[in-house]
């Protein structure tokens, strides 16, 4: 033995193995363990799915009652045929995990405030935010309630078993790519994870209040209530509500009473509250379109239902298509990996779709504690005990962090001395949020999956509490309907728009609006129902709907305008309508701009852009330069009008909505806020502001033109990003039109996440597409194969098959069988 060479080479080998077995820091992130990651028998090469992979096979699952057949079609959509419901959900869990395991688990890590556990201390802010908001607490509340409902408990348990059966069957080298990238392993699924996921959806759709109430409080304090009320009014001139204007509402059963002292401490309170920025804020454009037309307006004489929920565009997609067939129901649609049943879809009798209600269901109360130990708080003239809830956050490579959250009757105290909303003085803010209170979880969707008629639909959604949704409905028997359902607080005007005092009952919620008084319309005279996140009713509805800022106006206007003149409608017409790029906001705003532009005061270059604007046809097409010019001028105008008024504000606050500015400009040319308060010798008019905006925008537009970025599709630059924001796993620079005020509400990272059209003919005629693919594996050709169709506005005909037809349909490519064993 040659000792020295032996030692040297052994040390070198060990050293190299060590380095290749350690995640190395590169910039802000870390590499995977390179030796492991590159190993063809263990690492990422194992995730390179052969393009001719067969998905057929026989799977033995412990605890299945009977045989389950799953037919996979050419788009990799599973069609599950089971003899019992529980077998079907068992297999749904297995299939979700087989194709989407990493995503399912990752989403629950986010919801549960556990990102630091896998991603390290950089993500601690997000974790703290979600823990303190009560995400885990809320999921626990719903789970406890659902465990008393044996049917739902059995459903979630069967689904959980299915996920775990798949995880158990996984060989180490078969775990999804992202686990290998981030170097961790899948853990057991639990029913709590399903509820955590649903809690995340509640956050995404109603959680904007978590920041908004603080910002609105800042704005109200900064501006004073009167100016605030003008800038954030409760009126929208263009509103075309979900429930047709003129509908007569019954007398309210709850008449909320505003506190007597509301003017002094609440509306005009002057103390400054500085809000912490939430690390993940739900997109304000989280919204959706849905509508249903009755047979009187269609070519076939049968209703057509359409839905396109607008959410963050991600890969793997939030949605997963599936058909579930059992003796109790036969249902097709988009499901959530992480949850049993179909969420948006149709069955042999009915179809349903959802949009976000946007109602404010999250409020802050300022709590007075006896001392900093937060054990007792003052309420209704006495000291009450607060429980301290411990949340332990594990941090990769660091010691655990223990968070103590005081729990009051109003809810968890999100902000305290330790987690501050304010840099100057401590403020204790409790969050009262309907999502934190036990909800009915999945029961609504479970029942919709089985609904046969309009009364089943009504009973299915009656219990739905959070997030509040507009449930559109159509049936083969010819009915259409829409209802805004959720646990909505019966509020007095402006209740909960700002932080409220939490020392007694006067500012507390005085009741939840009875389900029967929620806005609803069945088979309206006009022959269609629709919603696009606008206010659900006109001002004759007896309850306060919340600050108008929550409700976009213009998509609802254009949808109703189009539907009102459409007749003899076919599914193809509906495809065009869902992809409509017409910008009705621009149509209303351009005349105001042009009226105030004096061409003689423009340079040639400025004039050129104004001409582009003049000639534009209001369509936000990919190549439309007019859309780019319009948005640049409008954005500059907002800057010119608001910047001077808000620049002295030290705390974060929103600017007024585009609709508020437009409504005021349409009404008068002497708009008070047009004046630049920094110029003392002059009072600027709207014309001054518009001219300044055009000049500012022209500078920016020249830059764009130099870079050849003047086309709307290029500047909008739509992308579908991987959940880890890795560009290589994302689809970037997609050539798609649209915008936030178009029916095709596609913006940069946000848009129609599932387009569905269901024609209620005897043999259901349905179409759908989502920007993703059925496989969550970036190494599969099914990872993003729908994206190009989605971009082009094309749809797939959805295969809705009886079992006999499934065995012989030419589009069925693979057959999996599941048996007990």
């Amino acid at each position: 033995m040659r000792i020295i060479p032996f030692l040297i080479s052994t040390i070198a080998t060990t050293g190299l193995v060590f380095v290749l077995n350690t995640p190395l820091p590169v910039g802000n992130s870390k590499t995977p363990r390179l030796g492991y990651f590159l190993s063809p028998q263990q690492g990422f090469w194992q995730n390179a799915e052969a393009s001719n992979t067969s998905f057929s096979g026989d799977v033995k699952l412990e605890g299945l009652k009977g045989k389950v057949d799953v037919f996979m079609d050419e788009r990799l959509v599973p069609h599950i045929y089971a003899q019992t419901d529980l077998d079907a959900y068992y297999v749904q869990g297995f299939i979700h995990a087989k194709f989407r395991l990493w995503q399912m688990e990752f989403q629950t890590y986010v919801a549960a405030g556990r990102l630091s556990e896998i991603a390290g201390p950089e993500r601690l802010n997000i974790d703290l935010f979600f823990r303190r908001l009560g995400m885990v607490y809320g999921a626990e509340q719903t789970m406890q309630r659902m465990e008393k409902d044996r049917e739902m408990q059995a459903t979630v348990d069967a689904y959980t078993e299915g996920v775990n059966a798949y995880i158990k069957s996984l060989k180490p080298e078969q775990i999804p790519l992202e686990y290998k990238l981030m170097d961790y392993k899948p853990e057991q699924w639990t029913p709590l994870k399903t509820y955590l996921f649903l809690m995340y959806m509640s956050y995404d759709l109603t959680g904007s209040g978590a920041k908004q109430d603080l910002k609105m409080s800042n704005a109200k304090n900064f501006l004073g209530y009167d100016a605030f009320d003008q800038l954030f009014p409760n009126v929208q001139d263009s509103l075309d509500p979900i429930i047709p204007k003129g509908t007569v509402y019954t007398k309210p059963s709850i008449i909320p009473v505003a506190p007597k002292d509301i003017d002094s401490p609440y509306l005009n309170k002057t103390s400054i509250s500085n809000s912490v920025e939430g690390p993940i804020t739900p997109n304000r454009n989280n919204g959706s379109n849905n509508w249903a037309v009755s047979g009187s307006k269609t070519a076939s004489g049968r209703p057509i239902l359409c839905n396109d929920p607008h959410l963050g565009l991600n890969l793997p997609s939030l949605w997963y298509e599936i058909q579930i067939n059992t003796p109790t129901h036969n249902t097709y649609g988009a499901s959530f990996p992480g949850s049993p049943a179909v969420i948006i879809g149709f069955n042999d009798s009915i179809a349903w779709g959802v949009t976000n209600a946007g109602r404010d269901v999250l409020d802050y109360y300022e709590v007075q504690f006896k001392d900093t130990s937060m054990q007792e708080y003052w309420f209704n003239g006495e000291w009450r005990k607060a429980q301290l809830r411990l949340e332990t956050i594990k941090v990769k490579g660091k010691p655990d962090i223990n968070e103590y959250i005081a729990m009051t009757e109003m809810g968890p105290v999100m902000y305290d001395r330790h987690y501050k909303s304010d840099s100057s003085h401590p403020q204790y803010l409790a969050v009262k949020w309907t999502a934190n209170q036990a909800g009915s979880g999945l029961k609504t969707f479970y029942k919709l999956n089985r609904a046969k008629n309009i009364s089943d639909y009504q009973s299915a959604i009656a219990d739905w509490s959070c997030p509040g949704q507009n449930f559109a409905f159509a049936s083969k028997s010819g009915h259409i309907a829409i209802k805004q359902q959720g646990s909505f607080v019966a509020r007095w005007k402006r209740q909960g728009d700002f932080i409220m005092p939490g020392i007694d009952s006067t500012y507390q919620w005085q009741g939840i609006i009875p389900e029967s008084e929620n806005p609803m319309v069945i088979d309206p005279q006009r022959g269609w129902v629709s919603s696009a996140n606008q206010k659900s009713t006109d001002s004759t509805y007896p309850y306060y709907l919340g600050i108008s800022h929550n409700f976009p106006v213009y998509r609802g206007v254009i949808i109703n305008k189009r539907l009102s003149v459409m007749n003899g409608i076919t599914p193809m017409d509906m495809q065009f309508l869902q992809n409509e790029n017409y910008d009705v906001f621009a149509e209303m705003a351009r005349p105001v701009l042009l009226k105030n532009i004096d061409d003689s005061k423009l340079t040639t270059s400025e004039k050129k852009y104004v001409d582009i604007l003049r000639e534009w046809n209001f369509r936000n097409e990919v190549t439309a330069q007019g859309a780019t010019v319009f948005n640049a001028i409008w954005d500059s105008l907002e800057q010119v009008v608001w910047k001077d008024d808000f620049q002295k504000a030290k705390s974060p606050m929103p600017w007024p909505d585009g609709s508020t500015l437009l409504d005021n400009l349409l009404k008068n040319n002497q708009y008070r806020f047009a004046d630049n308060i920094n110029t003392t010798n002059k009072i600027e008019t709207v014309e001054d502001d518009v001219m300044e905006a055009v000049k500012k925008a022209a500078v920016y537009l020249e830059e764009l033109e130099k870079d050849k970025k003047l086309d709307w599709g290029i500047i909008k630059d739509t992308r579908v990003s991987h959940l880890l924001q890795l560009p290589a796993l994302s689809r970037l620079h997609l050539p798609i039109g649209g915008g936030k005020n178009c029916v095709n509400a596609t913006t940069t990272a946000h848009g129609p996440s599932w387009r569905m059209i269901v024609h209620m003919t005897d043999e259901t005629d349905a179409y759908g597409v989502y920007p993703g693919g059925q496989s969550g594996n970036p190494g599969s050709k099914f990872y993003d194969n729908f994206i190009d169709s989605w971009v082009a506005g094309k749809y797939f005909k959805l295969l809705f098959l009886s079992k006999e037809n499934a065995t012989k349909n030419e589009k069925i490519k693979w057959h999996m069988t599941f048996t007990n064993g």
Partner: protein
Amino acid sequence: MKFTTAVFLTAFLAFSIGLFTILPWWSFVITSFLVAMGIHQNVGKAFLSGFLGLFLLWAFLALVKDFANEHILSIKVAKILPLGGSYWVLILVTGLIGGLVSGLAAISGSTARKK
């Protein structure tokens, strides 16, 4: 002859032990070590046969996976790592990493042997 045998034995044993995916990815260090100890060659040749055994094995396995996959994943991974999005470079790097570890282990095996 010895050299070729060593190369193929290194590759074969590394592949075999690699089938046990609960073992760490570097388990071939042991087999490469043993092959170099068993088949006596000078240090240079031992390194080269150890290197080639794993280089060929890993590059070949990667290549098979990659062509069946039509480069869908390799192009993405070659952007993450970053290797300019080239699947050829990624296959090469895969082979080099395996080869280097195995070659060093083979030197140890060769020098561990009594003269």
